């Protein structure tokens, strides 16, 4: 999937004990950077990507040839200004953009791992990425941020490394997956596994690809990233290049055509097994349980300043779940700010051109940096 692409990566030789019990070592972690690390090394921002993201935050993605997934927020003069800050983003382990994942070759069998790959967690992802600090010789990051699963990694990072970030901005996320979140992820996984090409995860060794299953998974998930109003406004009942219904199962409606398109472009850039592994990691994430039901304990040891951001129309990780993080932080007197941004663009708001969000992000980051 990533052959012939210019992907930077480090090999992590420090053994990493995974939550599942296995230990991995000498594994690759692919990353990208933007901007310049200053002499004091106090301008580094570690960005964590979401489920289907990758390390290409800004600029052109070399695989898709499209803009990086957070181009609205990261770049020269943007909210996260790469003229000022050194932005690092790594592909999560379990992913398919150069980091250690199920599409890698298993040295023991010389075959592609597939479902022989160990189950990984958000904790494992974050522990792997912490090696980047050693690699860049950064004592303390200025900021850690990310939306959705990226936000979960922000929370886990501060929990694991309480003195490694000055500020933390988890966006549109949760401290544990709700039954509804798990349900949608399971729908995606089942649709991949129902594709006969999936072949119990061994499709790559058999030169097959469960494209249809992965595409349906993406379609279903995509709906959860948008709001009802947003969809209605954009598509309504508009027909796709036709004047009337065709009395068939073609894509009569624009929304059908749009989803099919989303599904088909996704399979060109994403590995089905990675989708299984990463959604599993999200489902397993439970920072509340990790602290015996008291989320505050996750942040007791930290002096990191927090800004929590949610969106009015996000029903996947609604404001109420984001607010639980705020409440947990307030309960221990942590320095925390919170704002719910008005937007009809649903969960995806954090990826889009939502000016009030981008302004708030920019203000908070720049004002916090002033106090550096």
């Amino acid at each position, binding site marked *: 999937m990533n052959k012939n692409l210019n992907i930077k990566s480090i090999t992590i030789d420090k053994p990493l004990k995974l939550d599942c019990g296995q230990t991995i070592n000498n594994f690759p972690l692919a990353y990208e950077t933007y901007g310049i690390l200053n002499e004091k090394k106090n301008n580094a921002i570690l960005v964590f990507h979401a489920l289907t993201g990758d390390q290409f935050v800004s600029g052109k993605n070399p695989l898709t040839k499209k803009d990086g997934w957070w181009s609205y927020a990261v770049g020269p003069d943007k909210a996260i200004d790469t003229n000022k800050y050194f932005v690092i983003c790594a592909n999560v382990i379990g992913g398919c953009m150069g980091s250690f994942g199920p599409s890698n070759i298993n040295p023991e069998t010389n075959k592609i791992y597939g479902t022989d790959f160990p189950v990984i967690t958000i904790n494992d992802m974050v522990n792997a990425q912490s090696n980047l600090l050693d690699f860049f010789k950064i004592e303390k990051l200025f900021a850690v941020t990310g939306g959705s699963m990226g936000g979960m990694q922000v929370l886990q990072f501060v929990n694991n490394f309480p003195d490694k970030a000055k500020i933390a901005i988890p966006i549109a996320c949760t401290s544990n997956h709700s039954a509804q979140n798990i349900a949608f992820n399971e729908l995606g996984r089942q649709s991949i596994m129902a594709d006969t090409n999936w072949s119990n995860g061994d499709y790559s060794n058999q030169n097959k690809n469960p494209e249809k299953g992965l595409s349906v998974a993406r379609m279903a998930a995509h709906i959860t990233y948008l709001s009802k109003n947003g969809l209605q406004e954009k598509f309504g009942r508009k027909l796709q290049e036709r004047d009337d219904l065709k009395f068939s199962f073609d894509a009569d409606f624009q929304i059908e055509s749009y989803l099919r398109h989303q599904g088909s472009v996704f399979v060109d850039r994403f590995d089905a097994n990675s989708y299984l592994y990463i959604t599993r990691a999200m489902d397993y994430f439970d920072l509340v349980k990790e602290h015996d039901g008291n989320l505050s304990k996750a942040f007791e040891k930290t002096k990191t300043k927090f800004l929590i951001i949610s969106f009015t129309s996000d029903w996947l990780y609604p404001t109420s779940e984001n607010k639980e993080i705020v409440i947990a932080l307030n309960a221990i*007197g942590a320095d925390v700010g919170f704002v719910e941004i008005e937007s009809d663009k649903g969960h995806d708001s954090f990826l889009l051109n939502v000016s009030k969000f981008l302004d708030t992000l920019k203000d908070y980051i720049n004002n916090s940096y002033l*106090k550096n």
Partner: protein
Amino acid sequence: MKQEFKIISNFIEKNTRVLDVGCGDGTLMQFLKNNKEIDIRGIEISKNNVQKCFSKGLTVIEGDAEKDLTQFPDGSFDFVILSQTLQAFLSPETVIKELLRVGKKAIVTVPNFGFWKVRLHLLIKGTMPITKNLPDEWYNTPNLHMCTIKDFYNFCHAREIKLDKSLAFHNGKTSSINEINLNFKNLSAELGIFSIEG
């Protein structure tokens, strides 16, 4: 306004933790931050105002003081400020109780409905008073529970809330309020500024 801020600022000690409840666009927070070495944050219901606060580098939590103060532990702030907002709550009594739980001290400022101009307005014109501090019409005012300096003073006594400091504010001048001059201050001051303890 600035004058009121200065008085509030004088009430607050250095190196303390302060919460501004209903902090608006952060004008008071910014004033206090620039003039005092304190750790201050705010809680504000309006999204627009919250964003304005962030643009000024102030830490605020979007929320409704009437519901969201519960998330702060007992005594988690040295001072909790409620500047000219008490009258806008559905249940001022509950809010005061919460302020005194969350803060070791609470600083409350009250636009005085007993001010002579307000009384005269109602007496002469027979319509709901509109003044500098109370600029809205009866049908669009956010103020649900107007009170007088005397009302607040009596309330504190009835609830055994300790009045640490009670000041009457008028035309840029302050004077202390006590049992003896209460009726006079209630007539002559636009604003009451109180520091209270539970």
